[in-house]
């Protein structure tokens, strides 16, 4: 199943946020969206996931989703969006409650999602008892439970410290390894984008336009190797040179607003 951003433009009141953004996320592909702050990355993701109606243009799907997918387009949120009154297992169960799954099936799905995210020992724990990294793992387990075709990840690591980020990045690489799941990964962190994405959509400053689409010429496995570091860094620098001037302008603009 492909996800298409078809000439999406969006404005909040008098503020133009997105301007004619078009690209396609092909089945199983990981596309990162980067750009200076305030360029509408998260707005674009909300539109792609059907949580926000674009002013013009449309988010479209092409092809059938996997037959067993309960929620083909599934979000992973920056602030985790866990129900604080529910345990880890209940949080993972929440998106399954209205589905046709029976109790036993549901339990099996929850067990599997918790196992894949290393949360099996935390079933009965409440979110406030968990560290930020573990909370986001619950968010990921919840997303995995509905067997998404495409994960829509909105700065999933930006609320975490750098060590936790590193560990979760390894989890992402592992989860996306078999290509069964695609992802749209919104981030301001170029290192994350270069590590994870097959292609990177670089947006200009507000109103966000597609400035460039950069393809990463390595498999994710290759990028894990020590000698790939130099190449990745070069790619990161290349991206930064695309964004830097605009990031400076965007920062000034925010300060004056």
């Amino acid at each position: 199943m492909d996800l298409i951003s078809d000439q999406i433009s969006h404005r909040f009141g008098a503020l133009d946020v997105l301007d004619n953004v078009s690209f396609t996320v092909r089945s199983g592909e990981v596309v990162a969206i980067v750009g200076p702050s305030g360029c509408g990355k998260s707005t674009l993701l909300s539109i792609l996931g059907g949580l926000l109606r674009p002013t013009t243009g449309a988010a479209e799907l092409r092809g059938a989703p996997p037959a067993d997918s309960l929620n083909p387009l599934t979000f992973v949120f920056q602030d985790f969006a866990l129900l604080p009154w529910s345990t880890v297992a209940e949080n993972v169960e929440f998106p399954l409650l209205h589905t046709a799954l029976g109790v036993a099936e549901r339990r099996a799905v929850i067990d599997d999602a918790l196992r894949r995210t290393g949360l099996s020992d935390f079933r009965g724990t409440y979110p406030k008892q968990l560290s930020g990294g573990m909370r986001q793992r619950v968010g990921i387990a919840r997303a995995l439970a509905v067997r998404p075709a495409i994960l829509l990840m909105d700065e999933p690591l930006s609320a975490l410290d750098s060590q936790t980020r590193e560990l979760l990045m390894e989890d992402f690489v592992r989860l996306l390894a078999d290509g069964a799941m695609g992802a749209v990964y919104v981030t301001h962190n170029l290192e994350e984008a270069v590590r994870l994405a097959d292609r990177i959509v670089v947006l200009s400053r507000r109103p966000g336009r597609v400035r460039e689409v950069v393809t990463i010429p390595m498999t994710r496995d290759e990028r894990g190797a020590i000698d790939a570091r130099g190449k990745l860094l070069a790619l990161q620098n290349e991206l930064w040179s695309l964004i830097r001037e605009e990031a400076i302008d965007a920062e000034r603009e925010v300060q004056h607003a």
Partner: protein
Amino acid sequence: MLDRATPETQQDDTEAQPRPVKFRGAGFTPATSRYAGWIALALVIALWQLAGTAGWVNPLFLPAPSAIAAAIYKLALSGALWQQLSWSIMRIGAGWVLGTAAGILIGFAIGLSTLARGVGITFISALFPIPKIALLPLLILWLGIGEEPKIATIALGVFFSTAISVYSGVDAVPRNLIRMAQSFNVPFHLIVRRVIWPGALPSILAGFRITASVALLLVVSAEMIGAQYGIGAFVLQAGNLMQTDQLLAGVVILSLFGLVVGRLINWLETRLLHWR
């Protein structure tokens, strides 16, 4: 290589005597003491008792704590205490349940529907400031002189506070949780039950605390205006007969009743909001 301080510069520092950094972080962290409050209360009661037995105050105006305790004991023994209290509890219970049920219903409607919000907030803003006891005479005209107008007065007082605390509770549910639920195609009724209800519950329970005291205030006022039985009627009658020990016995019972209700709400909060 890292730069290190040379021995010469170190020597400069060691010549002067080291002095401690002044501590500036004191205060602003009052601790709660388990016993201080009880000890203070006991002291006040002891002083009050002393004033009574030493004859410093006229027992007609301020009877000693022992006299009040004796009055409560006699009331309990004769069954009068329970008779008065049961009437008040019946009125509070009926009025509070009615007002709370209606308040929760309307509060949720205002919190979830644009139409209900537009209409509801206007009405509530207009009617909330009315002291509900002022409506008792009108309610007596409408509903007769039985229990109904008293219960209705309490229900009205409870309703407005509840409705306000419920819709502000619904408003306070983090929007990101609702968006999350929507992103999983969770249906409306399940979002209300699993996200909005538990999210609004802290505010609803805080509202219970307010409506419990509103209900107590209104039941006493209503009973003073027109009732044969009930703690309010009892206190008024005792005052008219200059039975100050009986009067204060009634007041102490009201205070105890309020305390018990407060404890009950505490218990509910620890049961239902353990996740906080």
